[in-house]
């Protein structure tokens, strides 16, 4: 038996191709939306992977350092380092801000996550695990390692607050959970940048302190200077990243820190659930809504097209039924056409999404699983969309082929 659907498609191939391409662009948008969500999740996981930490020690009862602000003293890491099961512990600060690149053509702003890392060597928690160009930070001040997504090159000079930093190394896929490229600078510089005020504000603060009789006591020399010094320095970090010894479990190490240091400790799974479940939950819901709407629109388009194509063939369907064609043959013809339309649409959609993904400013991750699910969803949508047309075709009275 010949394929009636195949012959009809070959006969009206232009209509099918153009319709399939239109549908494919819609499917491409749907796949890209799914890719945006996957990219956000992946950005979060990459952030955790690249931190090189097993545990995140943060201010008590906060979801820091990525989802909430967290501030802990910068000397806590020493006592944590001595606790059982701790292999390494390092301070870290995170600050998302506009970083200016200075060039002859003028300053250019880039939104970046500035990470303050302790002095050490590659492999220390918080440090970029590998570079694609240049070297790691070796000096205590004014050097930076930047992700290439920020557009920086080796030797570029960045301006963070009032200080200038020379880019000495470049990384790839070192991004924050919101996809902003990371810029690594020495911890002391980062601590200063977090709380550094402009000169006018510092002067005003000093005057206020001097005018405060509690701090400016004639009988206590040196008190005022000490207070002012404490106001203009920052001895806090956002978190301590901990790497544990292999023979210890995460909970074995985390529990004593929680108990004795009065701090909150998250392991990898907890931190991932904070990033995915809380930080990008709203975005995920937003994207989920878009996916539902796009799926409904796709279904409506396929249903309308298949319905129209079937309406165009009502007389032929009546003739086919009159000359003895089985209902299932006619239903199969319509169903196959809907599925072919879906397959054309999916192929076009997949290709367009693959080529469009790198053009998006944020990371778009198209996974084979999502593609397979998308393909399955397209087929289901096509089957459901063809039901109306099939019902209509099966209702066609073969007597319509005979006049009168």
């Amino acid at each position, binding site marked *: *038996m010949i394929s009636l659907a195949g*012959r009809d498609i070959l006969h009206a191939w232009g209509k099918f191709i153009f319709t399939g391409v239109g549908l494919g662009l819609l499917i491409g948008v749907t796949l890209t939306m799914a890719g945006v969500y996957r990219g956000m999740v992946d950005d979060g996981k990459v952030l955790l992977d690249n931190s090189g930490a097993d545990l995140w020690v943060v201010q008590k009862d906060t979801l820091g350092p990525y989802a909430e602000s967290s501030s802990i003293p910068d000397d806590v890491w020493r006592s944590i380092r001595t606790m059982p099961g701790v292999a390494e512990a390092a301070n870290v600060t995170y600050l998302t801000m506009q970083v200016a690149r200075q060039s002859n053509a003028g300053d250019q702003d880039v939104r970046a996550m500035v990470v303050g890392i302790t002095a050490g060597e590659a492999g220390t928690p918080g440090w970029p695990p590998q570079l694609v160009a240049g070297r790691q930070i070796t000096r205590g001040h004014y050097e930076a390692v930047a992700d290439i997504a920020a557009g920086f090159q080796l030797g570029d000079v960045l301006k963070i607050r009032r200080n200038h930093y020379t880019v000495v190394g470049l990384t790839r896929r070192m991004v924050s959970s919101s996809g902003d490229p990371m810029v690594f600078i020495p911890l002391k510089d980062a601590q200063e940048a977090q709380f550094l005020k402009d000169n006018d504000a510092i002067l005003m603060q000093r005057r206020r302190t001097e005018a405060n009789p509690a701090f400016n006591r004639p009988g206590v020399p040196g008190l005022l200077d000490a207070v002012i010094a404490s106001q203009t320095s920052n001895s806090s970090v956002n978190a301590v990243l901990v790497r544990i010894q292999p023979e210890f479990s995460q909970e074995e190490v985390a529990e004593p820190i929680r108990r004795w240091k009065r701090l909150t400790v998250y392991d990898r799974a907890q931190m991932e659930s904070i990033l995915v479940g809380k930080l990008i939950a709203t975005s995920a819901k937003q994207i989920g809504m878009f996916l539902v709407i796009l799926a409904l629109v796709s279904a409506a388009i396929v249903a309308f097209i298949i319905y129209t194509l079937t309406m165009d063939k009502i007389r032929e369907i009546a*003739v086919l039924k*009159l000359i*003895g064609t089985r209902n299932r043959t006619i239903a199969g013809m319509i169903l196959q056409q809907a599925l072919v339309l879906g397959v054309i649409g999916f192929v076009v959609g997949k290709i367009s999404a693959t080529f469009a993904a790198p053009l998006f400013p944020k990371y778009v991750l198209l996974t084979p699983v999502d593609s397979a699910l998308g393909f399955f969803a397209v087929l289901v949508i096509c089957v459901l969309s063809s039901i109306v047309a099939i019902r209509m075709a099966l209702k066609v009275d073969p*007597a319509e*082929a*005979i*006049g*009168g």
Partner: protein
Amino acid sequence: MAENTGKGIHIEGLSKRYGEGDTAVLALKDVNMHVAPGEVVGLIGPSGSGKSTLLKCLGAVIDPTAGRMVLGDETIFDNGWKVRDLRALRRDKIGFVFQAPYLIPFLDVTDNVALLPMLAGLPNEEARVRALELLTALDVQHRAKAMPSQLSGGEQQRVAIARGLVNRPPVILADEPTAPLDSVRAMAVIRILNDMAKRFETAVIVVTHDEKIIPTFKRIYHIRDGITHEEAGEGRSFD
């Protein structure tokens, strides 16, 4: 009254009622008809006389209310259908030729004709060979690979006749087959129907209003208000 020879198509006391009670309409009343194998008869009557209803009953598209129909040696209706699969009955035992050819636009000429035997389960190649034989007999074999939209009206109608004949049915029901054609082409179609009827021993019933072809029938059934009257036709030459 027509005589049942045991072949062709034989109808006795066929009636069809639409609706129930006060709104009931008797579209066919005690219709009797017999068309022998190889014979072409005309069925003529004014609009609303019951022609189409009779054709639909004969074509197993609607259910007669009462009566008896014998197709070849098989009683297909006797106050109820005697065959379970009416779709297969239409496919294998009844050929249809319509006012417009109604060819399937996405199948070429050969496959338009070969579709019926394919639907009946014949392998594609065998079905195409059978279709080509008929297309050759109808002198359209040179358009075998053409699409219906590339054919003239006369060629399309010949292909439609080939489709009606391809499963060698004992009866062909032709509904106004010459209506869209000029005199020459109309006569050509009637000649072909007569030739094919004789060649394949097929009974042909032609429903028509066409004054050009009515004189060619040797027997005519007039139908008015659902009642048929048989009379002898002129049986003129087709030329």
